[in-house]
């Protein structure tokens, strides 16, 4: 499943866009410019990119608290996303969802989710709709290690199995559910082992390695597309920031995040692999870096300049009709 040069550049652009988006959101939040609760995906980019590289806009994903990366990888417009985080009417959810509910159903992005474990049942339904439509589309639930302990995830694995749904559960085990280590909170040896208990094929994947995620996802997704049913991917990865912005992260070891940025940077790992194989040149990556930095900076400028929602938005879109 080798990727063309254009695809590799696209993957890098997606991962870099996520990283830059999150780093700049971190700064803007710290400066008091972004309200509410924000959970950053920086460090985990290879998972979103590795999975979503296989998807079209007719495939579905459901996300977690940490949903910006999944949105970007699924193609959601970063200008609309940034405006959403700033609570502006030009936001992708018109300023009514915010970071924790960021979504774009036009692209099959069924939402970040403020409820841990909220997504898996929903993607069973999307997968059922895909199965009935018979066009080979799939639905994917991203689930954190926290969500992996929710009953909804267990129930959904079982339902996906017995209904033979084109569903994939991607556990993004970033080491901590809020402040609690996944080494402590997950009783089984891994979520892959749990999934096998439900009768699902499962793979453990190094979530820092785009190519590993991409390969495992490719197998799972093509199985699902051809009627082979659900799979679980257990991606071990790391987040660079806290559970939420403002988290002092005193539950983490000294210099833990500093070391992660040196040893476990999925962008760096990707760039080194792609340049060592001479599939990509460093100057091509540098050019993407510059473009993405400018893009996100512009997204922030535009978000700040955008108007907040009109007062009548308070009452709109509760129902289609009432």
């Amino acid at each position, binding site marked *: 499943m080798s990727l063309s040069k254009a695809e590799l550049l696209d993957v890098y652009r997606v991962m870099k866009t996520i990283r830059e988006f999150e780093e700049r959101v971190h700064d803007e939040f710290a400066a008091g410019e972004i309200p509410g609760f924000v959970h950053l995906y920086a460090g985990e980019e290879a998972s979103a990119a590795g999975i979503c590289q296989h998807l079209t806009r007719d495939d579905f994903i459901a996300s977690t608290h940490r949903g910006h990366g999944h949105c970007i990888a699924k193609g959601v417009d970063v200008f609309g996303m940034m405006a959403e985080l700033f609570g502006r009417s030009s936001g992708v959810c018109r300023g009514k969802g915010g970071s924790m509910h960021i979504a774009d159903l036009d692209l099959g992005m069924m939402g970040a989710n403020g409820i841990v474990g909220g997504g898996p*049942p929903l993607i069973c339904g*999307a997968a059922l709709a895909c199965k009935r439509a018979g066009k080979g589309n799939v639905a994917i639930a991203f689930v954190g290690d926290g969500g992996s302990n929710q009953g909804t995830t267990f129930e959904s694995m079982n339902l996906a199995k017995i209904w033979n749904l084109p569903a994939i559960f991607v556990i993004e085990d970033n080491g901590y559910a809020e402040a609690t280590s996944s080494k402590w909170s997950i009783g089984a040896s891994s979520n892959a082992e749990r999934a096998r208990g439900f009768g699902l094929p499962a793979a453990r994947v190094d979530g820092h390695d785009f190519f590993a995620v991409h390969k495992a996802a490719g197998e799972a997704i093509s199985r699902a597309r051809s009627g082979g049913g659900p799979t679980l991917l257990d991606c071990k990865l790391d987040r660079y920031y806290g559970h939420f912005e403002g988290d002092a992260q005193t539950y983490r070891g000294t210099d833990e995040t500093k070391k992660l940025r040196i040893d476990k940077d999925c962008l760096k790992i990707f760039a080194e692999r792609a340049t060592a194989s001479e599939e990509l040149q460093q100057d091509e990556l540098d050019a993407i870096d510059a473009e993405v930095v400018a893009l996100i900076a512009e997204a922030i400028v535009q978000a700040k300049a955008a108007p907040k929602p009109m007062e009548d938005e308070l009452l709109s879109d509760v129902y289609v009709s009432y």
Partner: protein
Amino acid sequence: MARILTFQQAINEALDQEMGRDPSVILIGEDVAGGQGGDGEMDAWGGVLGVTKGLYGKYGDRVMDTPISESAFVGAAIGAATAGLRPVVELMFNDFLGVCFDQIFNQGAKFRYMFGGKATTPVVIRTMIGSGFRAAAQHSQSLYSIFTHIPGLKCVVPSNPYDAKGLLIEAIRDDDPVIFFEHKKLYAMEGDVPEESYTIPFGEAEIVREGDDVTIVTLAEMVHEAVKAADQLSAEGIECEVVDLRTTSPLDEETILECVTATGRVVVVDEANPRCSMATDIAALIAQHAFGALKAPIRMVTAPHTPVPFSDILEDLYKPNAEKIAAAVREVSEYQTWTQTTASRS
């Protein structure tokens, strides 16, 4: 052409006609076919009380049995609705909302608002309510007020076979999430039901009995107790008007207020527990908007603030009935304000 059907048959017919009309309508729920994986009939149960019986034979894999995993399959119905299907999912007893409520009130109810108007979630959740079956505390509640509280949900509480069919067809065609409450004591009730497909709009209460003296506002099975009470009271010279809400969200505030303004005396009857209930909600509505028209304090006839008991003697005590309603009506009917009392003395 109208025939006599039971409430249960009316619901089955509504499902049948909508499934026949629209291939995106599917049924999901525990035992809705009822024989999955066994050695006997595939269409063994048709739901625990047989409401969906026969639909599997007609529509095959569009009638989907589930494991007992309400969070997963109610959530799946909601997810499928956002992805283009029109699922009717059965939550067997509304008491089981505790094992799937997140998917209903945090997910399905809020998608459209949270996602800036992009989501459409045309799902119907059918669920049984009601005491009187000696089914005790976890299979007998009437929890419509909890769902009515949630913006984004619509709540339908039919009281008879005609309404059950028309309101269910309306619910299936509606683009918002609808909770459809079926009182289990009404399943055997018979009534005229047209054979053809028809809809009844939401938010339109029905005045099922006319009367000038006292308004009784009620819903579901209590409509029949209220009518029974009204018939008894008529012999005593008190004429009651009975308002059947039919839907609690949207709520037909206009009809309630018009009726109460005309009679000035009102009894609200609700089978559910009294606190934060439809009864208190309607009492508050009247107090806010029709206070000046009231000739007597608003009276509520509800269950007490207890779980539903098992033993028949206790459950009968628990549940509102025609006698309790009649007593409350007499009270508001006889009530005289200070000014009325003074006027009558002079």
